[in-house]
C-alpha cells in the first residue's frame, strides 16, 4: 500500500514537470502589453519627481527660487522621457502621437497633474483625477 502510494507520487510529480517538455506546452517569455516598459517607467518616475518637488515646496522644504529651477529641470527631463516613450510606442498607433503631444502641452501649461499624470482641461485649478492643485503653476518653457 505504501509502495503503491510512493509510486503514484513519483509518477504524478514526474508527469507534472515533464509534460511541458514532452508535449511542447509553452509559458510566455515576452512582456505583456500592459506591463511597463523601461521608457514608461522613466516617464512615471519623472512625473513622480515633479510631484515630490511640488510637495517639498508646499511643505516649506524648498524655497521659491530652487523650486522654480528644479521644476524647469524636471519638466525638461519629463519631456525627454516622454519622447523616449513616444519613440518606443509611437510607431504602432497614430493616436499616441496626439496623446503625447497633448501631455507635453499639458505639462508645459501646467494642466497635466504632477501628482498622478492626469491631463486636465485648460484652465483647471485642481486635478480632476486626484485633486492636486494645479492653479498655482506658472507656465514653464517646454524645453
Amino acid at each position, binding site marked *: 500500500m*505504501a509502495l503503491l502510494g*510512493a509510486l503514484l*507520487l*513519483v509518477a504524478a*510529480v514526474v508527469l*507534472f*514537470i*515533464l*509534460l*511541458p*517538455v514532452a508535449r511542447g*506546452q*509553452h*509559458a*510566455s*517569455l*515576452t*512582456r*505583456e*502589453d*500592459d*506591463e511597463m516598459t*523601461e521608457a514608461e*517607467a*522613466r516617464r*512615471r*518616475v519623472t*512625473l*513622480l*519627481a515633479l*510631484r*515630490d*518637488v511640488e510637495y*517639498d515646496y*508646499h*511643505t*516649506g*522644504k*524648498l*524655497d521659491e527660487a*530652487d523650486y522654480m529651477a*528644479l521644476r524647469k529641470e524636471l519638466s525638461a527631463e519629463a519631456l525627454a522621457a516622454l519622447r523616449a516613450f513616444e519613440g518606443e*510606442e509611437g510607431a504602432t*498607433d497614430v493616436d*499616441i502621437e496626439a*496623446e503625447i503631444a*497633448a*501631455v507635453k502641452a499639458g505639462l508645459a501649461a501646467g494642466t*497635466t497633474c504632477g*501628482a*498622478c*499624470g*492626469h*491631463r486636465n482641461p485648460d484652465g483647471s485649478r*485642481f486635478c480632476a*483625477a*486626484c*485633486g*492636486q*492643485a494645479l492653479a498655482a503653476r506658472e507656465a514653464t518653457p517646454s524645453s
Partner: protein
Amino acid sequence: MNVLGELALWIALPVSLWGMVLGFAGGRKQRGDLTLSAERSVYAVFFLTIIASLGVVDAFLNDRFEYWYVANYSSRNLATYFKVSGLWAGQRGSLLFWLLLLSLFATIAVWSNRRKNREFMPYVAGTLLTITSFFLVVLLFADVNPFETLGFTPADGAGLNPQLQNYWMTIHPPTLYLGFTAFTIPFAFAVAALLNGRLDSRWIVLTRKWTLLSWFFLANGIIFGMRWAYEELGWGGYWFWDPVENASLLPWLTATAFLHSIQIQENRGMLKVWNMGLVILTFLLTIFATFLTRSGLIESVHTFAQELKIAFIFLGFMASILMAGLVLVLYRLPKLKSENQIESFVSREAAFVFNNLILLGATFAVMWGTLLPLISEGFTGQEITVGPPFFNRVNLPIGLALLALMGIGPVIAWRRASKKNLKKNFLWPLVVGVVTAAGLWAAGARHGMALLTFGISAFVMAIIVVEFWKGTRARARIEGEGVVKAFYHLVARNRRRWGGYIVHVGVVFVFTAFAAAPWYGEFLQTLEPGETMTAESPLGHTYEMTYEGISTNIRDPDKNLQWQATALVSVRRDGEPLGTFTTEKRRYIRPEAQIVTEVGIKSFPMEDLYIILADADLDRILQGDAGGQAVTFNVLVKPLIAWIWAGGLIITLGSLISMWPSAGAVRAPTAARGRGTTGAEPLPAGD
C-alpha cells in the same frame, strides 16, 4: 506517512535540480517549454516539502521515538502544540521548515507572475530552485535528515528544552524564518534582472512588497525574541548580543538599508550597483543567520547542534552565491551606470546614503563582534570573546546617528535643500529636543548619553508630527477637507511614505526605552514568610513586597513536573495594593537537565516591576520543612520597558500601512491605458 515524508525529500531533490537547470536554460535559450517545466518544478517542490513536513509533524504527534529527531525534541507528556512546533524546535526540523516556507513563497511568487513579468520568470524559477536544491542537499547529505532512525525505539523522548516551552518561543522562530525566506524573492528577481539585462527599477518595483514583508517579519521576529528573553530567561534582560540574536539583526540592518536605498534608485536612477550589492548581501546574511543558528559553530544559548560537516556545506554555498553575484554584477556593470548624480550633500539622496553607510557600519561592527571568537580561535588557537560592553559601546554612537537621521532626512528636500529652509524647518524641533533634555536634566536625570538620546528622540518626534501636520494642513487647504479626512487621505494616497514615518515613531519609542537602561534598579533581599522588602523606582514610586509563603507541587506527570516551588508575593505600590504575584523554580521530568526560574512581572506604562525568586533552600522547602522557608528575592525596577513592546506594535502598524495593497498598484485594463485616451492611470504611491 513518515516513510512517505522521507521519500518526498528524495523525490524533491532531483525535481529541484531539474527545474533549476531548466529555468536557467529556458531563460538563456528563450524556451517557453523549459520555463514552464521549471515553474512546475517550483510547485512540485512545495508539494513534496509539505508531505515531508507533515511526515515530521505526524511523527511528533504519534510519539515516534524511533526517529532521532523526535526522540531528542519531544516526550510523551509534551503539550500538543509544542509537539507541532517540534517541526522548528531543533536544527533538523527547522532546516525542513525553512525549506517549506521558502518553497511556499517561491510558489506564490511564481504563481502570481504566471501571466506577467515573464521576461524575469525563467531566471527567477532557476534561482529559487537553486536555493531549494541547496537546502535539500543539506537535509539529505549533511547528517541532519529529520527522518533518520535510531535503530531502536526508546520508551520515551528526551523532551523539549523547558526554556523553549513558552508561547513566544513557538512564534518567534517561525516569524524570523518567514522574514529570512521572504527575502529570497527580491534576491531571485535581482539575479533574474542581472541575467536578462533589464536593469532599470523594474525588479525593485516588482519585489518591493516582498522586501517590506521580509522586513516586517524580521522586525517582529526580533521583538518576539526580546520578549521571550525578557519573560523566560529570568534575568530581566531582553538583549544579550548573543550570536544568534546578532545573526537575526544583521539581515534586518541590511534590509533596512536596502528599503531606503531602493527609493533613490526608483526616484533618481542612482545607486544601482549598491542596491544589487545590498540585495545579495542581505540574502547571504539570511543564510548566514541559519548557518549560525543551526550549524553549532558558535557557542550560544540557542545552539543545540555540533556537527561541522553542515558548516562546510553552508560556507561553500555562501561563497558560491557571493562569487556568482560578484561576477554577474561585474558583467553588467556598464548597464548599472547611475542616471543621475547627487547634486548636494544637503539633499534627501545624501541623507539616504548616510543612512545606508551607518547601517552597514552597524552590520559590520555586529558581525565582527560575533565572528571574533571564531576568527581568533582559528588564527591563534585562543578564543577571544567580546561581550555586551563592546557591542553597546560600538553601537551607541551608530544608533544615535541613525536616530538623528530619521529626523533630518524627511525634512531635507530631494536634490538640494537651501540653508534658509533648513533653519526654518529644524528650529522648532531642535528647540523641542533641547527643552526635553534640559527638562529631564532639571528633573534629576544625570546621564549624558541617555539625555542625548532623549533629546534626539524628542527632536525626531517633533519633526514627524510637524510633517504629518503640514501635510494634513496642505491637503485640507487644497481640498477643502476636514482635518481628519485630509489626514486619512494624506496617508492613504502615499502609504509607503507615511507608513515609513509611523515605523520611525516606533523606532523612536524603542530607542527611548533603551536609553532608560542607566535607571534600572536592582534590590536583593532574603525574606522569611511575612517579611516585607521595599524598592524605590527612579520615577519616585515605592514598591513594598511581602513574602506570603511558598507552595510546592511534587511529581505532577500531567504537567511534566518533577517539582515546582512557587513563592507568593503581595505587592503594594505607594501603599496601594497591586495584588499577589508568583515567582517559581521548576524542574521538569523531561528533560531534567536544569532548574528553571519563572518570574513575576507587573508592567506599567512607565516602568516594570520584575520579581525573581533568586535563591532558596530548595531541599528543605521541597521536604516541607517549615523552618527553611526563607527565600532570596531579586526585585528589578525597569523604567520604559513597555515602550519597547509599544514601539514594536507601532512598527507593525506602520509597516502594515506601507504594505497594504493600494489602489494605485492595481493596473488599469490594457484597453484603457497605453493606447490610452486620458493618460489618467494612477502613479504608484511612491515617494
